[in-house]
């Protein structure tokens, strides 16, 4: 269980060769705490399922959205049993594969969602473990190549610190109140998170086909994971040592391969969904619904308030503006963060969960699970206290102002939207700050000194 200490030799940092076989050792050694964590998480969820809070939570607009509500899944299945297409009317907005899945497990829905959470946590755990290994290996090479100056000591990660990060990630996901709420509400966001987590895991493992397939599944369910194509491609290229250079043919060849796999599986999935119900009416109901935002039920997103007061004449324009806003950050961020594709994934997930049309707390829980991965940057983050307080306060104020608005009638929608805005601002601030520090860290490739550091701070 002991870490490997670094020691100073001739003003150079040396680390003993980090055992790559330690990966398995880690797994064996960490299996017990992970299992304990899983058991604890499942217990909490099971306890909440049995209590009367389950119905209460299932109705909260912060936890379920018109797309992910369990009530709508049950309604869609009931409609199907009555011989009516579940996409008729404004009831069901999930994909046909969800129908297929829940047709058989609707009686065991709670177990399904708990299993989804467990899969997510395990996938994240293993992904982060693998990522840490690679980061550590890169760091070791960089160290041995004498590319780190001495003053960047505090930025160097030791295996001791990184030993517990995967467990922390799993813990951050499983014991996050947002995740628990989302699971107890049986929101299909949990399934979406599971697919994205599997995608991240397969990407970090380096499996191109699986990564493309899982990304396709995630995109098929809600369109926004499309933006994760770019970081996935970047990471896989780097892993296969393909230089990220527009002039190289291998670059384009790899992109073509990946896109072929991705688009091919997307095409196959869509055709398969057609065969499930025999009609295309799931397309406007699922994708049309996500893109055109007809349902303006209040949620923690930014769309509803704006479009409630939008004149019909301008609706299409602003709809396009809002939707492009989600996809717009992909290219600049990929250009900036091409050396750190996993961080790019984290940023993209944050952008998606803030700017998507029907966000829920489940989406937030997924990217918040990644925070321990960059815990070495925390020391340098400013306004941590402020941001975390704002997040906490907003999370508490959501149900309060909802009650005041809807039930007591002494507030109105402005109150609720103000809290939504504040929440999203805090969310934007949080990865943004991490990004700053990460960019600064990335410059440690070049010699850095305290003077240099401050200079870099100024320019960013």
């Amino acid at each position, binding site marked *: 269980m002991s870490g490997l200490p670094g020691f100073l030799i001739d003003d150079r940092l040396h680390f003993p060769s980090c055992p790559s076989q330690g990966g398995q050792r880690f797994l064996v050694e960490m299996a017990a705490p992970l299992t304990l964590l899983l058991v604890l998480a499942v217990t909490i969820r099971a306890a909440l399922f049995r209590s009367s809070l389950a119905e209460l939570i299932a109705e909260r607009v912060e936890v379920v959205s018109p797309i992910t509500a369990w009530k709508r899944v049950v309604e869609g299945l009931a409609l*199907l*049993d*009555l*011989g009516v297409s579940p996409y008729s009317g404004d009831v069901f907005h999930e994909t046909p594969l969800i*129908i*297929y899945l829940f*047709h058989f497990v609707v009686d065991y829905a709670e177990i399904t969602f708990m299993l989804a959470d467990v899969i997510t946590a395990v996938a994240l755990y293993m992904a982060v473990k693998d990522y840490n290994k690679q980061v550590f290996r890169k760091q070791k090479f960089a160290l041995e190549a004498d590319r780190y100056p001495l003053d960047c000591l505090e930025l160097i990660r030791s295996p001791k610190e990184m030993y517990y990060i995967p467990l922390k990630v799993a813990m951050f996901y499983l014991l996050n109140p947002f995740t628990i709420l989302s699971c107890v509400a049986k929101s299909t966001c949990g399934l979406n998170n599971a697919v994205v987590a599997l995608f991240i895991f397969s990407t970090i493992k380096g*499996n191109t*086909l*699986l990564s493309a*397939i899982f990304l396709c599944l995630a995109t098929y369910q809600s369109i926004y994971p499309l933006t994760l194509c770019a970081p996935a491609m970047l990471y896989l290229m780097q892993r296969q040592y393909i230089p990220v250079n527009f002039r190289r043919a291998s670059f384009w060849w790899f992109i073509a391969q990946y896109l072929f796999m991705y688009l091919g599986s997307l095409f*196959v999935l869509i055709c*398969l969904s057609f*065969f*499930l119900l*025999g009609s295309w009416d799931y397309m406007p109901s699922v994708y049309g619904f996500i893109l055109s935002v007809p349902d303006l039920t209040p949620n923690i997103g930014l769309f509803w308030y704006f479009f409630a007061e939008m004149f019909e004449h301008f609706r299409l324009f602003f709809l396009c503006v809002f939707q492009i806003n989600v996809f717009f950050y992909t290219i600049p961020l990929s250009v900036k963060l091409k050396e750190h594709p996993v961080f790019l994934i984290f940023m993209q997930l944050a952008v998606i969960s803030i700017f998507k049309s029907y966000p829920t707390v489940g989406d937030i829980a997924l990217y918040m699970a990644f925070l321990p991965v960059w815990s070495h940057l925390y020391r340098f983050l400013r306004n941590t206290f402020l941001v975390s307080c704002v997040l906490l306060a907003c999370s508490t104020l959501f149900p309060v102002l909802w009650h005041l608005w809807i039930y007591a009638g002494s507030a109105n929608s402005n109150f609720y939207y103000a809290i939504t805005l504040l929440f999203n601002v805090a969310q934007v601030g949080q990865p943004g700050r991490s990004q700053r520090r990460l960019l600064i860290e990335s410059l440690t490739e070049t010699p850095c000194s305290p003077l240099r550091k401050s200079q870099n701070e100024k320019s960013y």
Partner: protein
Amino acid sequence: QEFSCQIWGIFFLKKTFKGNLRNYWNFLPEGFINTQLFTRFLSRISQDSAGQFFSSGHTNNWAVLVCTSRFWFNYRHVANTLSVYRSVKRLGIPDSHIVLMLADDMACNHRNPKPATVFSHKNMELNVYGDDVEVDYRGYEVTVENFLRVLTGRLPPSTPRSKRLLSDDRSNILIYLTGHGGNGFLKFQDSEEISNVELADAFEQMWQKRRYNELLFIIDTCQGASMYERFYSPNLMALASSQVGEDSLSHQPDLAIGVHLMDRYTFYLLEFLEDIHPASKANMNDLFKVCPKSQCVSTPGHRTDLFLRDPGSVLITDFFGSVRKVEITTEAIDLTDPIKEVEERPANGDVHKEMHSYVDQLPVSEIIHQKPKQKDWHPPDGFILGLWTLILLVFFQTYGVKHLRHIF
């Protein structure tokens, strides 16, 4: 109604006297009066033929009892109507044949010291609001329009049967109105009036639609006789409590309740009717003698000129009761006609009895045992096949074909 009658008359003239049309068109100004008389003549012709038809009598009885005034101090009008209702019901007319319209609720009025009662005699001798009073039109539903619609039958299709006057051409109808009236009008709800012309036209419409056989009209208001002055339809007999220019007066106040309980005319009418039983042979002449001027301060009036039969031959129970004409015979009537029996001979020759089982219309067993609903929809097989083939393909692609060796 009169105008339309005249138009009808003119058309009738045009049809039957085409040749002499020019002559009649010349007489158009005075022709109006002529046509009125002519139509009356025509109706009298039809009456003669109808009279033979109607002398066979009535087969059912109806009663329309209306109290038109509201407010606590008009307690007596409600008591009037309820007394007549009571008598009519006692003598045999069922609630389904009585349309009772009360403009206000005295029994449950806040000022009623004896709730759920309406007394007709002082010292609370007689409670005319029993346990089985069925009011069809109550409160603000008692309007001139509703009253006329009930009489003429022009009600919206959603009106329930209890609010309809479903009389036919063999019905004897008793119509009783009470409230505040004047010369030629009766006040409804202190806000609108019905005039004697409207009433007469309503009765004419009833006659033309053959909605009554004979009609007895009783009114207990001030100057009540003015209301039957304008009648012109056949088979109408009318009684009123006072002549034109006279006021009908109330009978006796009850100090415990604080209002006058009845009007004089109806009070003595009720006394008279209390002596009538279904087998009674009292006739209309006795009814005309009810409440002479000595008892009612006003002079009651009646009108029988439109009535075909002699009032002396009209029984009280013809209008107030529902007397069935029963013919008792001691002969035995053979109901068993020879019925041709169709015997079913099955093909195989032997007669077998069909076992009739009770049709299982309601799946009671399923409801009782609450079986879980069967899922009717299943995903198509092609879909399942395709999906799992793909999954297997991806699996083997990822983990290599060499694992197949371990599986098989």
